[in-house]
C-alpha cells in the first residue's frame, strides 16, 4: 500500500559539546553528577547574573565547520529564545537565530551501494535546558538544573533524507565525524546526541506534504521505529481522506507510537531578539585558520590511506575507521612494529575485537598493550608460532598474563622450524609410502595434503607447515 508513497525527512541533531565548562558559565559540564550539583548563580537564573561566553565552544563549532564542509561565519549573534518552563531558569534559552556560526554544509552518506550528498542548512550554538522529572512523586515535579547551560550545537539538515536507513546512516556519519574531531562524546544514551525528525509524505514525484516534527529521539532504534510509525500514520490519514496537521509529536518508547504534543496553533512565539548581555561574535580569519590543524584526519582521509598505503580490504578498513579509537589503536600498532598493516588489521577486526566484545571492554583499554600484541603478531607472521598457537596465546596477552615470548615458551608452542629436524621427521614419514609417492608423481596433488598432515602429526602440531610443505615437495619430486 505504501509503495507509491515516499517520505521526505530533515533532521535537527543536537550534539552536546565536550567542553569542561558550560556555554556561558563556569559550572562543570559533566553527566552523572548528583542533581543540582553543577549549578551556579548564572545557571539558576539569579537576579543580576550575566552570561560570559566560553570561547572553547566557538572553537569546537569551527572544527565542526571544517569537518562538515560548512561556511564558517565570521559574524554570529546570540539571541534569546523566550519561553517559560521550570527547567529553564532564565525564562529564555540563549541560542543563535538570524546569524548562526555555521551555514551551508554537507556530508556524504552511504545509500544502498551509492553515496548520497546530504546538505546541511546551518549549525548554531545554544544552551541546553535542565530536566524536569515528573515520575518521582504523585504531587510534585522535580527539577534538576545540572544540564542547564550545557553547550549544544544544533545541526539542521535540508529535507534530503528519504528513508529510515538513510537517516540512520546520516546520523551515524555525523556521530562518527563529531567523535573524530573530539567535539562530542557521541553517547546517545546519556543524551549527548539527540535528534528531532521532521517528516512528511508525498506520492512519488508530487509536491511536499505537511510535515510533523518528532522531538527528542536518542537512539538509532527509536529513530527507525518512530520514522516507520509516523510514515504509516501519515499515509493512513491521507488514504482515509484526512489531512496532515502540522504537529509536534512525541515518540512513546513503550508503545513504539508517535502522538501529538501540540499543534501549530499552539506553537510558541519565541520572541527571539539579540541578547543584550552578549556582544556579537566577531571572528578574524586568523582565529578560524588557527583551528584547521586541530581537525585532524577525518574518516574518509583514513579510509583512503588504509586502502592506498596499507592495501587493506575495504570492508576491514571500514570497520577500523568506524570509530576513532579503533583507528587510533590500529595506527599505534603500526607505528610500533614492523608487522605488515594488513596482517595487523586482520587480527584486529578478528580475534582482538572479538575479545573486546566478549569481555565488554573499551577499545581504548588496549592502548597500553599494543606492544605485547604486535610482539605476538610478529611471532606469528615470522612463523615462530602457528596461527593456531597465536589464537591460543592472544587472550592471555590481552589479559596481561605475560609477555608473548614467555607465554610461547611456557606453553611449548614454538614451531619446529629447524629444517634438519623436519627433514628427519619427513624421511621417517615417507617410509613405507612408496605407493602414495608414485601417485603424487603421477599427478595426484591430494596426496601432498596427506603427507603434510602426517608430518604435522608427527611434530605434535608444532612443525612449521610452510617449511614441511617445501621440504616435502623437494623430496617427492626427486
Amino acid at each position: 500500500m505504501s509503495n507509491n508513497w515516499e517520505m521526505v525527512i530533515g533532521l535537527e541533531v543536537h550534539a552536546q559539546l565536550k567542553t569542561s565548562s558550560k556555554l556561558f558559565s563556569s559550572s562543570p559540564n559533566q553527566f552523572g553528577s548528583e542533581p543540582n550539583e553543577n549549578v551556579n548563580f548564572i545557571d539558576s537564573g539569579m537576579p543580576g547574573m550575566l552570561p560570559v561566553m566560553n570561547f572553547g565552544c566557538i572553537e569546537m563549532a569551527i572544527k565542526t565547520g571544517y569537518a562538515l564542509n560548512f561556511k564558517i561565519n565570521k559574524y554570529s549573534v546570540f539571541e534569546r529564545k523566550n519561553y517559560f518552563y521550570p527547567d529553564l531558569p532564565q525564562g529564555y534559552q540563549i541560542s543563535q537565530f538570524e546569524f548562526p556560526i555555521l551555514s551551508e554544509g554537507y556530508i556524504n552518506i552511504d545509500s544502498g551501494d551509492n553515496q548520497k550528498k546530504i546538505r546541511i542548512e546551518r549549525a548554531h550554538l545554544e544552551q541546553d535546558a535542565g530536566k524536569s522529572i515528573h515520575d518521582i512523586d504523585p504531587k510534585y515535579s522535580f527539577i534538576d538544573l545540572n544540564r542547564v547551560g550545557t553547550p549544544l550545537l544544533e545541526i539542521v539538515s535540508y529535507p534530503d533524507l528519504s528513508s529510515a536507513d538513510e537517516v540512520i546512516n546520516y546520523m551515524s556519519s555525523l556521530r562518527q565525524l563529531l567523535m573524530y574531531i573530539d567535539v562530542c562524546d557521541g553517547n546517545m544514551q546519556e543524551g549527548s546526541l539527540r535528534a528531532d525528525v521532521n517528516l512528511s509524505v508525498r506520492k512519488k514525484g508530487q509536491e511536499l506534504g505537511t510535515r510533523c516534527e518528532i522531538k527528542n529521539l536518542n537512539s538509532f532504534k527509536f529513530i527507525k521505529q518512530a520514522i516507520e510509525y509516523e510514515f504509516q500514520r501519515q499515509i493512513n490519514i491521507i488514504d482515509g481522506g484526512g489531512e496532515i496537521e502540522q504537529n509536534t509529536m512525541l515518540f512513546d518508547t513503550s508503545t513504539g507510537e508517535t502522538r501529538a504534543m501540540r499543534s501549530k496553533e499552539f506553537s510558541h512565539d519565541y520572541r527571539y531578539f539579540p541578547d543584550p548581555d552578549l556582544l556579537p561574535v566577531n571572528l578574524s580569519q586568523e582565529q578560524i585558520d588557527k583551528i584547521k590543524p586541530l581537525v585532524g584526519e577525518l574518516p574518509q582521509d583514513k579510509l583512503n590511506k588504509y586502502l592506498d598505503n596499507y592495501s587493506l580490504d575495504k570492508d576491514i578498513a571500514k570497520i577500523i575507521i568506524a570509530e576513532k579509537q579503533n583507528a587510533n589503536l590500529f595506527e599505534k600498532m603500526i607505528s610500533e612494529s614492523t608487522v605488515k598493516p594488513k596482517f595487523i588489521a586482520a587480527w584486529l577486526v578478528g580475534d582482538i575485537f572479538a575479545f573486546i566484545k566478549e569481555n565488554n571492554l573499551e577499545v581504548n583499554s588496549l592502548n597500553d598493550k599494543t606492544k605485547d600484541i604486535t610482539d605476538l603478531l610478529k611471532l606469528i607472521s615470522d612463523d615462530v608460532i602457528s596461527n593456531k598457537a597465536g589464537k591460543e596465546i592472544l587472550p592471555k596477552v590481552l589479559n596481561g598474563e605475560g609477555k608473548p615470548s614467555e607465554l610461547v615458551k611456557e606453553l611449548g608452542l614454538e614451531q619446529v622450524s629447524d629444517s634438519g629436524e623436519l627433514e628427519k621427521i619427513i624421511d621417517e614419514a615417507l617410509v613405507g609410502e612408496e605407493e602414495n609417492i608414485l601417485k603424487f608423481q603421477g599427478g595426484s596433488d591430494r596426496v601432498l595434503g596427506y603427507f603434510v598432515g602426517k608430518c604435522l602429526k608427527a611434530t605434535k602440531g608444532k612443525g612449521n607447515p610452510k617449511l614441511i610443505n617445501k621440504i616435502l615437495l623437494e623430496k617427492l619430486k626427486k
Partner: protein
Amino acid sequence: MKNSISQIKKALIEKKISVSELYDEYLAKAKSGNNNSFNLVIDRENNISSINDSQNRYDNGNPLLLDGIPLGIKDLFCTKGIRTTASSKILSNYIPNYESFVTQQLLNDGSIFIGKNNCDEFAMGSSNETSYFGPVINPWKNKNSQKDNLVPGGSSGGSAAAVAEGSCVASMGTDTGGSIRQPASLCGIVGLKPTFGSCSRWGIVAFASSLDQAGPLTNCVEDAAYVLNSINKHDFNDSTSSNHQREDYLVDINNSFEKKIKIGIPSDYLEDVSDDILNQIDNTKKALSKHGIEFVDVKFKTTEYALSTYYILAPAEASSNLARYDGIRYGVREDGESLDDIYLNSRTKGFGDEVTRRILIGAYVLSAGYYDAYYRQAQKVRRLIKNDFQRILNEVDFILTPTTPNEAFKIGDKLDPISMYKNDIYTVPTSLAGLPGISIPSGLSKNGLPLGVQFIGNYFEEKSLLQLAALAEKELSFNE
C-alpha cells in the same frame, strides 16, 4: 552646603569625629524614615566590624578611598546576605548570596552601607511611585504649597532623597533612561550616569541590559569623582564591560581646562519649555562664559524619535529580563492548580501595574509579525540617534541640556503613563547613545524647587565631563 567626602575624610583623619559617630549621625536620619527613602536600613550590629576596621585604618594613618563613608545603595544592587527587592513584591523575600561587582568595589574601598534605597519597581518609573514599598517623598517643598508631598523623581528616587535629606553621604543609583540624572535634578543634588560599559552590571537586577548603567548620586561633583574612582573598573563577568584604561577622576577635577572648550546647546530641546527651565540654561551659560567657554547652537535630527525608540527597546529587553521572576526557584510564589496558574498568579500578583505594562509592551514588540515594525525599526533608529550625537560631538566638546522639563511634582499628579514618560525626554537620548551624562543643580524654580542641567560628554570622557561640571558647580551653587 553639606560636607563633602574630602571634608569628612579630613575630619576623620584629624579625629574631629570618629567613624562610629559619623555613621550614627547618618543612621539616625535614615532610621527616622520620614521620606521613605530606604526599603531596608541595615542593623548597626551588622556594620560594627566594618566601622571598627575603618577606624583602625584611620588610626593607623592609611585610610582607603571611601573609608568610613556612609552610603545608600539602590535596592537594585544585589547585596550579600542583605535583602534585595528591586522594590517589587515578587522579590520582597529575596536575600542574595552574592555581592554585586559595583557594591563590592565600594566595600573594598572602606565605605559602609546604611541601607537599601527605595526605587521604582524594577527601576521602571520616573517618580518613585511604582515601588511596592510606597512612594518616596522629596525632602524639598514647594514654597507656595508647603503641605504637598512631592516626588523625588525616579527611578533612583530613594537614593536621591537619601542624599538630599542627609541620611547618607552619597548613594548608588542606576540609570536606564534618566533614573540617576532626573531624581538628582529634582532633589537638588549631583547625579552621574557614566558611559555604558564603564561600571559592571554584574549583580544589578536587570531592567534593560543595553541601557542599564550604575552611577553615583552625590552632594557635589567631587564626591561623584570619588565614587567613580571606586566603581569604574573592568569586569570580566560582564561581557559588555569595557576594558579601556580607567583614569583618576579626582586628580584634575578642580583644574581649569588647558584648551578652549566649546559647548553645544541643542535648540530643539528648548522649544516649548518653561521660563524656569530656560533660566537654568541661561544661568549655566553665563556662569561658564566667564571662564572663556564658548557656546554654540546645535540641532539634533532625531530628538523626536528618542522616547518612542526607548519605550520599544527598554520594555522589549525588560520583558525577557523579568521572565526569571516566575516564583519557581526564589521570590514570592502564588499557588495554582497548574503550572500555568502558578506562573500567572505569581506574576500577576508579584508585579505592579507599570512593570506589567512594560512586560506586555515588550512582549508585543518582539512577537512574530510585529518584530520588524517595532523592535528592528527601533534598533535602526537607535543607531541614527547615536550617529546624531557623534556628529554633534565632532563639532563641540560637550552638550548642555536641561535635565528635566519640569520641577518636582506632587505625588499622584502624573497618573498618565505617557506624560510620566515625557519626564525623561532630555535624558533618554543620551542613554540610547550610551554616552555619559551628569546632572548638577543649577538653580531654583519660581516655587523654590531645585532644578538641574545636564552636561553630556563623549564616550569614556568622564574625566573632562566631571571637570566641566565642577567648574559650573562653583558658579551655580545655591542655598537651600
